[in-house]
């Protein structure tokens, strides 16, 4: 449903009263509206959909997810599912949703 891609903020400016950013998507640069992520900073990554930054990309979560994929099958034989362990160890963004 929603094609959105991660891009890195290169610069920020106000235009016609709207907060806009220049965002780099792997060598392609596009103007993006920051009204929904007003505190996004230069250098940070955001998920962009139809010209709007909708959510900050959390680098730590991304790395942790990849690390868990790496360890899948290795740790598991000894310690059980690493995801479940991470979920227990950290109820944060990688964990289960709190009710």
């Amino acid at each position: 449903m929603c094609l959105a891609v991660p891009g890195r903020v290169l610069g920020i400016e106000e235009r016609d009263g709207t907060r806009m950013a220049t965002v780099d998507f792997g060598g392609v640069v596009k103007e993006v509206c920051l009204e929904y992520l007003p505190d996004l900073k230069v250098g940070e990554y955001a998920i962009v959909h139809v010209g709007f930054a909708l959510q900050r990309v959390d680098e730590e979560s991304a790395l942790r997810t990849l690390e868990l994929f790496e360890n899948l099958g290795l740790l598991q034989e000894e310690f059980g599912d690493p995801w479940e362990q991470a979920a227990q160890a950290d109820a944060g963004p990688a964990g289960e949703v709190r009710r």
Partner: protein
Amino acid sequence: MKYVDEFQDPDLAARLLDDIRAAVTRPWALMEVCGGQTHTIIRHGIDQLLPDEVELIHGPGCPVCVTPLEVIDKALEIASRPGVIFCSFGDMLRVPGTGRDLFQVRGAGGDVRVVYSPLDALRIARENPDREVVFFGIGFETTAPPNAMTVYQARKHDIRNFSLLVSHVRVPPAIEAVMQSPDCRVQGFLAAGHVCSVMGTREYPALAERYRVPIVVTGFEPLDILEGVRRTVRQLERGEHSVVNAYPRAVRDEGNPAARAMLDDVFEVTDRAWRGIGVIADSGWRLSERYRAYDAEHRFQVGDIATREPAECRSGEVLQGLLKPHECEAFGTTCTPRTPLGATMVSSEGACAAYFLYRRLDLPARPTAAAVPGPSLEDSTVG
């Protein structure tokens, strides 16, 4: 591309697949809700790589495809009016209404323009004060905030020649509708990651509890899909049904508060028809009272256009996994990708369109890796 390439790694995909194979002991039917996820699944051949026990049912999450015939007919009527500049996302131009599509309106002299962002439509309105500029506001919760921004700004800057033809839809009522079907086969959901980037995850625990289904918030790269499947299957195998966020790099529990606030201001919940499925209560948004002046349906008085969906289309059943596409009488006869009756044939990733193509390839309906004619490229040396 950072955060994309890493999540397409074939070696890590193999590990995830191994883990899914190790976990699964019996058949499970999962639904990926989002059309973007279906796209990834087909594009990378993920459905062929999963163990036979895991069946993916492609859900109703392509906003373009579920836009009801009636709204498209309204769009065609408005776009045909003299003096109108009709702006739309590119993929909407090809969707057939009754007898024609927006391309044909353009061919007949209508000013129909493709835009990348809704703000481009607003800019066109600023640049053409003597023309009526209409934007076709379709999409789920992800696209609704960008579209909402246009009327918010139009109101703020008093841009009177702009209006929005709204056909927004919401995911949770669709999940609910699927689950309420008496013959529902879906046992777990991969929830749409980018919808949750905006809306957060708090709408889902109640659904998971009520229907006792695991709901795993899932991203869009191949590894994300596999992780969504893996975590759903693990829950099912253990008899659990919780909401899990498997896309934490882009989804927070609370979603995007600024975007949600805008949605609350600009839109109000309404019943909405889904192409080929029918009306789902509270499943859509329309402009709220204070933005009614920017509603293209009112401005162009197309409210009396009422189009019936073709009765022979059974895409609602297909979408729920109750009917295989080729079991439908219209399949391949009155309904083909060029003359689609419903959402599942409109979408190139829709179950019916995919069946249509794979039948031409003479593959089984859900081809296993072994059944696909095996190119020997990996081993071949030239010469």
